[in-house]
């Protein structure tokens, strides 16, 4: 890696997801600043907000780079939920096209991070909890909303730091992914490496 990254903008659906990316970025890139932007309200509008904000952030980033701020980067988070990573990524690409913004180039420091099912799946998976991509931490085994959701959320928050540490370990150049690594996480690791180019 060359010069120290100056600033990273993190665009995320929610605070917990944004904080995992922020903590990863701080650990992996040690930037001078991280600016976290999270969606203002509930789940559906959170997704819409990220889709709408993405072209705006891309335009701002490209504007900064064109004026010499080469060491800036953008990380965008949106949960896959019940879609595939490819489907969500396509929606983001379509949002760029609809706003007349050129597609993301291979050399741009812009990472698109799409956890499946959502970021909590990764937070648990990265901290040695056995999960698959259908895992929903807010529901019990019967699919009902778990009664102790607040307790679960707190435990999830306490795992953000260790999860970011593990994500950093996995994303190091040539670091092998364990065989049980979640498929969406393998794609995200490649995306995160874009930030360091």
């Amino acid at each position, binding site marked *: 890696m060359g010069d120290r990254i100056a600033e990273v903008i993190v665009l995320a659906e929610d605070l917990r997801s944004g904080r995992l990316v922020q903590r990863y970025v701080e650990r992996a890139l040690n930037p001078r600043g991280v600016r*976290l932007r999270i969606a203002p*309200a509930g789940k559906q509008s959170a997704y819409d907000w990220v889709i709408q904000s993405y072209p705006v952030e891309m335009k701002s980033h490209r504007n900064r780079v064109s004026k010499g701020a080469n060491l800036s980067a953008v990380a965008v988070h949106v949960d896959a939920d019940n879609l595939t990573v490819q489907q969500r990524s396509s929606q983001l690409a379509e949002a760029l096209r609809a706003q007349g913004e050129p597609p993301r180039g291979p050399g741009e420091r812009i990472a698109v991070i799409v956890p499946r099912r959502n970021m909590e799946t990764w937070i648990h998976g990265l901290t040695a909890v056995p999960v698959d991509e259908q895992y929903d931490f807010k529901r019990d085994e019967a699919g009902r909303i778990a009664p102790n959701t607040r307790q679960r959320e707190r435990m999830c928050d306490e795992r953000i730091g260790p999860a970011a540490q593990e994500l950093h370990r996995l994303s190091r150049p040539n670091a092998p992914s364990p065989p049980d690594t979640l498929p969406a996480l393998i794609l995200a690791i490649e995306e995160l490496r874009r930030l360091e180019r």
Partner: protein
Amino acid sequence: MITQFTIGGFRAIENLTLELGTKNLLMGLNGAGKTSVFDALASIRELVVQGERIADEKSDEPLFPLSSVPRWWRNGSPGPVEQRFEIVFEGEDGPIRYVLMIQQDEASGRSRIFSEELLHQDRPMFSFREGTVQLYRRSYEKGPTFTFDWNRSAVGTVLHPEIPHIDWFKERMRMTTCVRIDAPRMAARSEKEQPDLERDLSNFASWYRRALVTNAAAGASYLSDMRQVIAGMESLDLHDLGQGIMVLRASFEQPHEPIAPGRRRRGTFWLGLQELSDGQRALIGLYALLHFVLKEGATLCIDEPDNFVALAEIQPWLLDIADRVDDYGAQCILASHHPEILNLLALDHGILLERGGSGPTTGIRYKPDADLPLTPAEVMARGWQHG
């Protein structure tokens, strides 16, 4: 961690129970009661930990003056009225509940502790009622009794090593810090070490002097952060003036002077804390709280942490505090109107305090309309928080 805080009869708060998590943001209009929540908690801390009397005639600011009773209670009551406070801590083996009742008599002008109880899993460990202390044994059976001063906390004063939960509670209260930073009052001069911070941080230098002695490792990480937060700052130093007096000062990198073609002299200059800007002083205070106060089991309450601080400085500090709360098992309770803080914390951690007209305060979890694509700050600015 404090999981529940109940206030019955304090200023505009008639009966309020706050359910608290590790990270909390108190929101609401001016006069909704945010500062009163912190003042009540800070007064209980001073009563239990610092051994202060509830209504010390010599004190300029008694902990629970008669004026702290809701005005409408005082107007309508023929006899004494009782203020009730309850704090529930998450203990290692079940909840620890502290219940304090203060009797206020407007006719005689007298305030006194009516009762004080400490319970573990709802079983009594300690009771002080109408001037008599009832001790309990480890098996929760009643032990000896004796009389005690009605104006002071018996739980905080009496030593009772047979039940370790009592010391645990006192330690958790000691680790509860409530502040509202008043940067212009943060003095540089220290005459002695002080273990407790004044609520406005006016004794910051004396507290920092003590904090450095007890936690040198935190001092190193604090200075490392401050070098990044305040441009050009190199160190923060307690300069000894002799006779035990010290002055807190910061060193800055001197603008480089050319001394020869292609060569510049590197230098340093010092500024006393009082010579720094209000914003710089506030940052020094905010990051010190983060490094020295937020540790396992601690509760940090800050009223309007955004005061004096530049917009670009707020989010980095907020994210740092969230990281430390999660990593160290600490707790923070913030109160703010600032859009930067509302937009980051309200959705997940917001508690909305409200008063209907001049009536009592109520508190509910902030829950905006999920389909409303507005930031929490914009919702609050429009007064749409009720849907």
